[in-house]
């Protein structure tokens, strides 16, 4: 049973201090049965990446509400790459306009959950992609 545990890192790179969305996300993911690690606010991309490596998570859910996503999120992917773990899924959440979706995906973000989405969409994505994969193993 324990081998089906999905570990998720909720990361808040950038200087954005509004953590309501990240905390609600963390709790919702927990209630969905995942093991959730939260980095806290004001993380550098390197901090998020090293945390993900050490915790050996399956997915990173990034959240930023200040418009720094286009610069900061791809840096997380870069840092993962440097550490040989860019196989970890990276999801982007926050105030992300539609036109930023493709640029983010091109830079290695696996899915973008912009305005109008909520934790439930993230949970479903993880269930489909990560849990599905684990059960398919």
């Amino acid at each position, binding site marked *: 049973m324990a081998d089906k545990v999905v570990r998720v890192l909720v990361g808040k790179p*950038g*200087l*954005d*201090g*509004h*953590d*309501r969305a990240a*905390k*609600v996300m*963390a*709790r*919702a993911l927990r209630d969905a049965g995942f093991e959730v690690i*939260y980095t*806290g*606010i*004001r993380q*550098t991309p390197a901090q998020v990446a090293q945390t993900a490596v050490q915790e050996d998570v399956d997915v990173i859910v990034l959240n930023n509400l*200040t*418009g*720094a996503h*286009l*610069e*900061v999120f791809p*840096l997380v992917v870069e840092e993962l790459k440097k550490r040989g773990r860019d196989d970890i899924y990276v999801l982007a959440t926050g*105030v992300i*306009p*539609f*036109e930023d979706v493709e640029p983010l995906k091109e830079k290695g973000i696996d899915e973008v959950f*912009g*305005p*109008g989405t*909520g*934790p*439930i969409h993230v949970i479903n994505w993880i269930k489909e992609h990560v849990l599905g994969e684990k059960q398919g193993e």
Partner: protein
Amino acid sequence: MEDRKKIAEVKEDWLSTDYAKFVAKVPERKQPFMLDSGIEIDPLYTPADLDEDWSYLERLGFPGRYPFTRGVYPTMYRGRFWTMRQYAGFGTAEESNQRFKYLLEQGQTGLSVAFDLPTQLGYDSDHDLAIGEVGKVGVAIDSVEDMHVLFDGIPLDKVSTSMTINAPAAILLAMYIVVAEEKGIDRKVLRGTIQNDILKEYVARGTYIFPPRPSMRLIADTIMFCAEEVPKWNPISISGYHIRESGSTAVQEIAFTLGDAIEYVKTVIEKGMDVDKFAARLSFFFASHNNFFEEIAKFRAARRVWAKIMKEKFGAQNPKSMMLRFHTQTAGSTLTAQQPLNNIVRVAIQALAAVIGGTQSLHTNSYDEALSLPTEESVTVALRTQQIIAYESGVADVIDGIGGSYYVEKLTDEIEKRVWEYLDKIEKMGGMVPAIEEGYIQQEITDAAYQYYKAVAEGEKVVVGVNKFVDPNEDLTKFHLHRADPTVREKQIRKLKELRAKRDNQKVRKLLDELKKAAEDENTNLMPYIIEAVRARATLGEITDVLREVFGEYRPPVIF
């Protein structure tokens, strides 16, 4: 007035007959009806629902008189409308300056400055942590030179300026003073507000730098300095807005904000200043949320509780010390990305509640803010919303037009009661600082936020266009978004380089050393030292670094 008892009897009869029969046929939509604050709503309110000892003179009184339930001024909006103040600022100081001039031309009566996050956290634009953040949520200010550009051509002796700045508020205030003085304007005539409310940063907004205790000292320093030197300035805007936005209930918003306020007042009094010397310049900032009556009652209750606190707890004599004057912003978290035009209506209702609730100034959100920074068009609609309320709706023509509504009076009392319960609990914990250090406040807010999320996720709470009346064909991609200029950081870095090459670096070093020594002595007011450092062109980051060295940095407790 009719006999209370008689009314109660008839109400009882009505409930058990007409009402009950109707409910049997057509059940009510909810069971029970509840406010997010946990207050149950009866189907109908009458004079008999007010407390037995309810007294008009004690609970309401008259506008401009204790306990100020009906308003802080005798004429309210019959004299002058509230200040229509839209929060703005992004990118470089030049761009923000343009936006300010535009807003002043449109009839806005006060300026409100938003700063980018590096500025709010005391980092210069060339700091590593500033990558991707420079000019993003507001204007980037590294030195007094940027401040000069920001207010170029704006008469600082005539406008009032509100700055949303907290941890480094003392430094930005110093910059404003230096800019004014270098333009030949006396600091004594400057009008405006710095937010300067650090306690809510720890629980809600997240832009803290130093631990609570040295932060409180910095705040006391600014309050005391302003009382002597910048008498028309509001040295603090104690903010419930961010507490509410981080998911609290209306009751928590008021309770925690007033709890913070009590802490600031205590700190300044302990430093030896008489309460009446500074309390009149304390100002507040609240959110106006969706529930129309609850919000109005909230504002009224807040005024009454604060008046009692100042009079009874702190022994204030001057009625001005007891007045809760506040700015309001419509609640950003209620804006939806879906069907964004609906937001115009939400904002209008929230703004109406704020005005009826007696606000002193108001920011109305733009309908596209759930998607990104607002456009000029959406900002204008937001401002027009206020103007329609002011000039067309008629609500501003009478003072506290809703006063005496049985429901609103009952709600005002209920909210007040619950606020006192929280305040008592916080006092037992030793005040807001220990309550925050132990994570109690954060836990209360986080729990409320999660409750709200679940209620929406499960459809128990309807958000039009999101979980009901959804437009399946809606295209969320059609929006024009204002984008901050991606080269702002480079420009700021260039300006910093020039500044450091041009200024007298020896003098800067010397003044920073003096600031450091002053910071080490708790009883020295830091404002004069900061002003001198700013005048010598020390940067925001350099000044903050000195304070970081002495005060240390805050690490939050772990609360979900």
